[in-house]
């Protein structure tokens, strides 16, 4: 337990705050990388997932592909990209986008598919175009599941962004790796606790957002 005390002392030490290597700076960096990766992946995965959910086509191919991507160890993708692109933020960013992709895609098509078919048919019957169907009926009805996918992807990315520090001087993972190298357990543990706390806070925030997006009306039994 003494080590936890040391780690907390390390975190609260004013010398480790402010400046380019400071905790505040690294937390912001970590969050920026996370949001950038999730946003980039969302731009690619959400429209594709919505299209698959709406048309019902290509589902099997995409499910199989997403499963295969999940089996790829992120560290392997990261190191391969690192060799190809050199030290810097590009390699981790691409690896994190690939990591976020399957969860976002699965959330998007599952959300659209979960939209009440009766409501969709009714909307079609009153003369809505396909575009209106998607944007005004299927997306609002599937929002909960789609947001669930975004939440899962964000959690995976914020956790794995720690690995970015293995090949670039980015984010909170840096404390972990430099602590490991120099055998400074307090710094290493401090880094671990900071990442865990950040992931927890982010996940709870996303959960609250997800809850807030739910319609307040009660479900009518069918």
């Amino acid at each position: 337990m003494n080590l936890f005390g040391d780690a907390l002392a390390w975190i609260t030490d004013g010398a480790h705050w402010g400046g380019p290597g400071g905790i505040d700076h690294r937390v912001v960096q970590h969050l920026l990388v996370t949001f950038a990766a999730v946003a980039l992946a969302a731009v690619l995965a959400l429209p594709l997932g919505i299209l698959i959910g709406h048309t019902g086509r290509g589902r099997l191919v995409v499910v199989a592909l997403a499963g295969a991507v999940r089996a790829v160890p992120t560290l392997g993708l990261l190191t391969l990209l690192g060799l190809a692109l050199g030290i810097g933020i590009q390699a981790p960013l691409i690896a994190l986008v690939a990591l976020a992709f399957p969860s976002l895609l699965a959330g998007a098509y599952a959300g659209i598919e979960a939209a009440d078919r009766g409501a969709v048919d009714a909307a079609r019957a009153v003369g809505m175009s396909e575009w209106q169907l998607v944007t005004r009926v299927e997306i609002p009805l599937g929002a909960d599941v789609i947001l669930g996918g975004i939440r899962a992807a964000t959690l995976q990315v914020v956790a794995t962004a720690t690995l970015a520090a293995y090949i670039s001087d980015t984010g909170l993972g840096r404390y972990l790796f430099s602590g490991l190298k120099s055998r400074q357990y307090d710094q290493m543990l401090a880094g671990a606790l900071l990442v865990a706390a950040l992931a927890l806070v982010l996940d709870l925030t996303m959960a609250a957002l997800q809850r807030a997006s739910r319609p307040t009306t009660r479900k009518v039994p069918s």
Partner: protein
Amino acid sequence: MSWLDANRDYVLDMLLQHVRLSVPAIVISVLVAVVLGRVAWRWPRAGTVVLGSASLLYSVPALPLLIVIPVLLGIPLRSGLTLVVALAVYGTALLAGTAADAFGSVDARVREAAEAMGYSRAGLLWKVDLPLAVPVLLSGIRVVTVSTVSLVTIGALVGIPSLGNLLTDGFQRDIRAEIVTGVLGTMLLAVTLDALLVALGRVVTPWRAATPAGGAS
């Protein structure tokens, strides 16, 4: 291929280490998650707490977990036990909810019929609930298996040997073939274990082959 030819023993050794770390972690996850899932299904109020803490645990990133666990348990950082415990915690957190769903998926009428036929409570669990929960449970175990095999690689970052060593070593020495071997080896192991699980699932649920797909819900 030439890199693999020259390093066959090293790769096989790392593969063996990988199996030694991932299989116990998966087995422990399944055992603990089934017990927790059963508790959560049986006592829903306690279940909310159990499943809530499981999902909270799951949000703790894996690499930090590898560093916190040795401190909590007083075991060496580079010990394989650290990784097994971390991945078992992770797998359990991932699987507990699915296990509860699996027990929930068992048809209540089947359970009532078994009770009426005079099954004891233990008999009900072992001969009715567990076998009928297998299909849903198996889908969760397959996810945990693939994710565990893939996560074992990060042990290499703290010095626990596995196929992950091929990734870090290949990166440091700029040998692309070594990283590719590590990635493909990890995926191959995941696919193999997954196929074994599917086969095992067929063996323990022979009645499913007789009914059309999904008919036995």
